[in-house]
């Protein structure tokens, strides 16, 4: 596989790079800068050469994109099918209509909009508070020197390695004990679920933010301190603005995590009205009597759309954030 891969800069890579420059010039398009630097004259376009250089890459790309997108195309197509069952959804885009969307949004037996609202509230509040709590901790770890600092950082990361999901039985029992005393924040409440999620607010997030905070020069804080700013003021008005990109990334990752979270949400949220999309939609299609695949697809499209848009919008930062931990 990899032995056919020309590595840029290596002999073959260079060769191919050169070829491609000529090719770009020959076609008169491509990268203008490359075209400008090419001084050789026009050379006839040879398919074989082009294919060995970049053509096969496009073949790989097209195959991969087909693999990546075909479930997406399928679900969009079936969501547009006015009265589709699973079988009816197999002829892609045979019928187009928005009936399925209307059904999922208005069916009184399926409180889709309530689930959607619940999910947005739970995931949104969790994301905001996670970022806030994580940023507070990251600021302390990054800017202050205190005994137990290194130990604290390592502990937080190690504790985080054990997924909360594994303690779901204990979480359920703790929350049911809490509901005996304070029903407003116990089982079956959104506040309770958010509190449980905030148990994971420190951890990898803090570590990610800590790394980013360290890239902000400490001299900025010192200058502000000399000017008479308090630590709280420095944190809220200076640092938080300078680290905004990582805050956005952590918020998004936390948001996606909560949208996806099923185990704890399904254990804690009992009433249908209180549940999240993950719990509700899963129940919806796991019930064999409910054969309205088109309506489910419409719901899936509506549910996925905001996350996908946000993701694509922030993808540059996300990629940076993902590799920040490993790639220096």
């Amino acid at each position, binding site marked *: 596989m*990899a032995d056919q*891969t020309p590595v840029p800069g290596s002999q073959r890579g260079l060769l191919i790079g050169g070829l491609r420059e000529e090719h770009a010039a020959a076609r008169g398009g491509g990268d203008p800068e490359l075209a400008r630097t090419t001084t050789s004259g026009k050379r006839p376009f040879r398919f074989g050469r082009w294919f060995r250089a970049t053509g096969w890459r*496009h073949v790989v790309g097209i195959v991969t994109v087909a693999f990546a997108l075909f479930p997406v195309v399928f679900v969009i197509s079936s969501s547009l099918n006015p009265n589709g069952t699973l079988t009816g959804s197999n002829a892609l885009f045979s019928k187009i209509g928005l009936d399925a969307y209307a059904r999922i949004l208005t069916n009184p037996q399926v409180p889709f909009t309530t689930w959607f609202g619940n999910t947005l509230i739970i995931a949104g509040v969790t994301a905001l508070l996670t970022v806030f709590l994580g940023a507070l901790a990251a600021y*302390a770890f990054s800017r202050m020197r205190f005994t137990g600092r290194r130990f604290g950082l390592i502990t937080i990361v190690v504790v985080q390695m054990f997924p909360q999901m594994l303690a779901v039985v204990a979480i359920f029992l703790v929350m049911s004990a809490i509901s005996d005393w304070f029903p407003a924040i116990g089982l079956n409440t959104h506040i309770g679920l958010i509190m449980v999620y*905030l148990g994971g607010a420190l951890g990898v997030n803090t570590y990610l933010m800590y790394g980013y905070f360290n890239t902000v020069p400490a001299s900025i804080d010192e200058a502000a301190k000399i000017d008479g*700013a308090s630590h709280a003021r420095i944190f809220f008005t200076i640092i938080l603005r300078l680290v905004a990109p990582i805050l956005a990334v952590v918020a998004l990752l936390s948001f996606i995590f909560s949208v996806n979270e099923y185990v704890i949400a399904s254990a804690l949220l009992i009433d249908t009205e209180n549940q999240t999309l993950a719990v509700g939609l899963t129940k919806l299609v796991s019930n064999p009597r409910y054969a309205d695949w088109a309506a489910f697809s419409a719901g899936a499209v509506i549910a996925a759309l905001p996350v996908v848009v946000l993701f694509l919008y922030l993808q540059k930062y996300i990629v940076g954030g993902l590799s920040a931990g490993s790639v220096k």
Partner: protein
Amino acid sequence: MSTTFDEDVEAEKASPPTKRQKRAARIADAASGGIRSILVKLLLLGIVDAIAVYAILVLALSQEWLVLAVVVGVTALVNWIYFSRRTLPAKYLTPGVIFLVLFQVFVLVYTGYVAFTNYGTGHNGTKEQAVSSLMAASLERVPDSPTYQVTVVDQLGTLGLLVTAPDGEASLGTNDQPLQQVDPSDVENGKAVAVDGWTTLQFSDVIARTSEITELAVPFSDDPNDGAIRTPDGSSGYLYTSNLEYDEAAGTMTDLSTGTVYSDTGTGAFTAEDGTEILPGWQITVGFDNFVRAVTDSRLAGPLVYVTLWTFAFALISVATTFFLGLFLAIVFNDMRMKGRRYYRVAMIIPYAIPSFLSALVWAGMMNESFGFINQVIFGGASIPWLTDPWMAKLSVLIVNLWLGFPYMFLICTGALQSIPEDVNEASTVDGASAWQTFRHIKLPLLLVSVAPLLIASFAFNFNNFNVIYMLTNGGPRDTGAPIPVGFTDILISMVYKVAFTGQTRDYGLAAAYSIIIFIVVAVISIIAFRRTKSLEEIN
């Protein structure tokens, strides 16, 4: 990861500040806090304290002294931290740490405790609760019971019965509170109809809450053997006594109709001599029973072994397949001169952007044996048992997880490749290495150093990748031979979830024991893995 800590700490270690410097810093700090920030601080602490006082009151009422002590301690600590001048780092760490300790550390410890109990269906509460619910469940109307006049009353949603005995005496009680004599505030025709502190239910309310009212069984006295008052219609009540007789001194339950004696044999339920138990029982500590049962009961040990093996296989194969596909694509698209790379890239990361529970459900639809897109369209009507055959289901899970996971690997491999300096190629070319040799012996090791921690993280993630299993196959196909709801594609975490929360009987104790086993496995793997990566770093 751990080496990063070392470097950072080393680099930032400065000479400790002198006493004067410390004092100067404190003064500067004190001078800089504005009046507004002090007010905000006071307000926030005031809210925290008010909530704490409320919590303390509630806990005192329900006599939860241990929890109360914890609340008092934490509140005092929080106040001290935010009023003290010396606890600056703690001011920033406390909010997150409170949640971390309660919902991450404490629940972990609590899981350990639950693993040593018989907590679950039929063993939910204390012995007293078990006794009273057993008695209540076997209530039968006393044939010659006199008629008691009753009025249904309500206090903050709790229903009670205001009972007028045939001799005219009024008393009040609820499901949890035995009858106690009261002075009615209103009596009509010799029937007490109102009492202070309670709202009398009107006829329409009685109709609306019929089911709740017929469930009411107000104990006649503290002794459960005295029976309870129940009302079929909300206006007249009768004495019901239990079929069971509880002897507190001997700790036995006697079934009056058959004469069988059930006694407390230390198994958490009243047990007859022939071994039959009557449920509900109560919660007791069972020591290592759950662990022993999980590994020695052959019907449980079999599933535990194959689920564990499959969990490892699933996690390893998932990491390997996604990594190699991601790496391959990263290399393919890491050619600066290829056109349209951006568009390919955006299309390829879409699977990563869609919430995984949705994609797994969509795949489950597409892989449906008789109606799914894959069989109907791609394989022209074949009926390939994607999700119903044990081996095919495993393959399907891996395919779907490959689809879900390769974009992530593609992204991190692209990042890692781009961070490898170009002169590596030149140097190896000069030395006469082929592109493959350069890749295999120079680039791949360099790449592995930077992505190895992420591969371990990915392994850990897949080890507990609940969503893809549960949404796609629901762990199925089901293993009908096992006494717990386990299937052939279940991984450990989905098995824990099913044992705890699905099926007829919920066995929290067993589920917690499984959790502990997973904890240990994860911990051992993490330690080994991190040691390995460290040695990898030393090589380079």
